[in-house]
């Protein structure tokens, strides 16, 4: 069954204390050249049936209305897993 991926990040202007804590741990591990970490969310929605433009539009709406709170977060992307660009070195 096809899967739709929704990626959500806290708004850039907001403090991300969890990401800051991870960045602090990296620094203590001698990885201080990674100067900042921000933590977001990835949703994978399994769909019963084919995915068409209408399904993607429906998920985009869900992403804005429920999966993310647009007061504090941004929806970065909504896409199907099958057509996802696999970047160099990334494995699935």
């Amino acid at each position: 069954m096809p899967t739709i991926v929704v990626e959500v990040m806290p708004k850039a202007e907001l403090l991300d204390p969890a990401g800051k804590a991870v960045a602090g741990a990296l620094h203590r591990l001698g990885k201080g050249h990674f100067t900042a970490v921000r933590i977001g969310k990835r949703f994978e929605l399994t769909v019963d049936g084919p995915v068409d433009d209408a399904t993607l539009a429906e998920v985009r709406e869900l992403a804005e209305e429920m999966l993310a709170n647009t007061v504090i977060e941004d929806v970065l992307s909504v896409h199907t897993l099958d057509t996802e660009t696999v970047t160099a070195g990334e494995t699935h």
Partner: protein
Amino acid sequence: MRIGVITFPGSLDDHDARRAVRLGGAEAVSLWHGEHDLKGVDAIVLPGGFSYGDYLRCGAIAARSPIMSEVIDAASAGMPVLGICNGFQILVESHLLPGGLVRNDHGDFICRDQRLRVESTSTAWTNGFTEGQEITVPLKNGEGGFIADAETIARLEGEGLVVFRYLDVNPNGSMNDIAGIANERGNVVGLMPHPEHATEPGFGPDTALAMRSGTDGLTFFTSVVSAFAAQLG
């Protein structure tokens, strides 16, 4: 007067809220998140806790539970609704109040007796206070930082919709030290601190007079009862 207290999966302070309702002089009515039934109550309290384990976002799933459609309708028709802590988070996730609540800026859960200034007495839940009154009620949260865009903050401040402000310390990084806000009509109030934990001598915050004698939170509940009585004439 009958005041409903809604229990969601993961609510913690529903019992304390019902007790506070009774101490304030009203009848407490238990309401269940999974029903579409407000049981004819005259006001509603959304209690604190960790509804749905804070999954997705604090209050986000509770805000979409069956009973919330009735709560939103009732609130829009003017029924007094008080959201405490997780209840406040549910109110912003339901869009009954503006803004959002994010993880405390210092990253830690915080639990303390918190001094507040009452900034507005023109709400259903604060009419028994005096403007500028300083009160102490317990505060306990991990994600209590109030945020909103500049336009919303300006509107809240300009229209007198900030109801409570933190004194002494800002415990969670809230913008403008905002601890609680109201809607334009003043029937919907949300705040992070817990007035229901400061309603009975022996169980409240310490005061200069005696340990655990603080009952400043009781005025929330007596306020809504007297507003209701006045309405009945």
